[in-house]
């Protein structure tokens, strides 16, 4: 319990420091002005979300291979957290897009593939809610999770493969790309903050899943008596 409180406190402090850096340390971007500060939160959430889905994918593979309950619990915990992070990406993106592009939404490669990703992981959670038998639920959702992950590299590379409305990458984007050095530091600090915060949520959600499994076992014991 003490470790969880320390982890929560560290996460909250980092979140405050990340927001402070984004608002007060990062310089104003020349063409977009103050609205570009959404970038630190938007992209930080997007990267943490994709890494949560990567964790879900690894857990799904391990469940199919080893059939251990803990991998199913890690899978569902990281899928749910990844979905919440992607929801935030899909909310903050249009808020930024309206003043920057003049429109909230367009069906370009990055936006559409991110929306599809969001739908895939909603389907993953819906599938789990439809299957009662725990082992069958874990196996089928793991197989679906492995399939759903195919969209993650598609989202990541969409702005490299196709030139549409969404800006081309400023990080690891090749010649001519890149950020001002202070912006770069603030950006990577916010990426770290969002990863720590995502990990905190995954741990909390994993504890919830373990408690749920404990209830299932006790209920079966009660029914057997």
């Amino acid at each position, binding site marked *: 319990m003490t470790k969880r409180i320390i982890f929560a406190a560290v996460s909250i402090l980092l*979140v405050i420091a990340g927001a402070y850096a984004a*608002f007060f340390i990062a310089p104003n971007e020349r063409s977009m002005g*103050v609205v570009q500060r959404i970038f630190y*939160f938007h992209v930080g959430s997007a990267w943490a979300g994709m890494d949560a889905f990567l964790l879900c994918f690894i857990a799904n593979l391990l469940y199919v291979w080893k059939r251990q309950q803990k991998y199913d619990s890690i899978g569902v915990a990281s899928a749910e957290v990844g979905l919440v992070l992607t929801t935030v990406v899909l*909310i903050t993106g249009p*808020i930024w897009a309206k003043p920057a592009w003049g429109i909230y939404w367009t069906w370009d490669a990055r936006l559409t593939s991110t929306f599809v990703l969001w739908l895939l992981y909603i389907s993953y959670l819906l599938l789990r809610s439809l299957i009662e038998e725990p082992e069958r639920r874990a196996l089928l959702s793991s197989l679906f999770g492995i399939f759903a992950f195919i969209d993650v590299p598609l989202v990541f590379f969409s702005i490299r493969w196709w030139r549409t409305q969404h800006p081309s990458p400023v990080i690891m984007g090749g010649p001519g790309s890149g950020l001002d050095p202070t912006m770069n530091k603030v950006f990577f600090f916010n990426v770290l903050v969002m990863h720590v915060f995502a990990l905190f949520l995954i741990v909390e959600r994993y*504890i919830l899943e373990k*408690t749920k499994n404990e*209830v299932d076992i*006790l209920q079966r014991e009660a029914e057997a008596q």
Partner: protein
Amino acid sequence: MKNLDSVFAAYLIGWGVFFAFYLSIAKRTSDLRTEVERLKNSLPRAK
């Protein structure tokens, strides 16, 4: 400071979503812990 309202909206809504999600996890965990205690009390063997 043009579009500062959009920046605040993005951060407030975003953190609102995270906070609501955390509260839902805490509430569900707390309810399940109560259920675990109830079931353990109804199963003397499991104590």
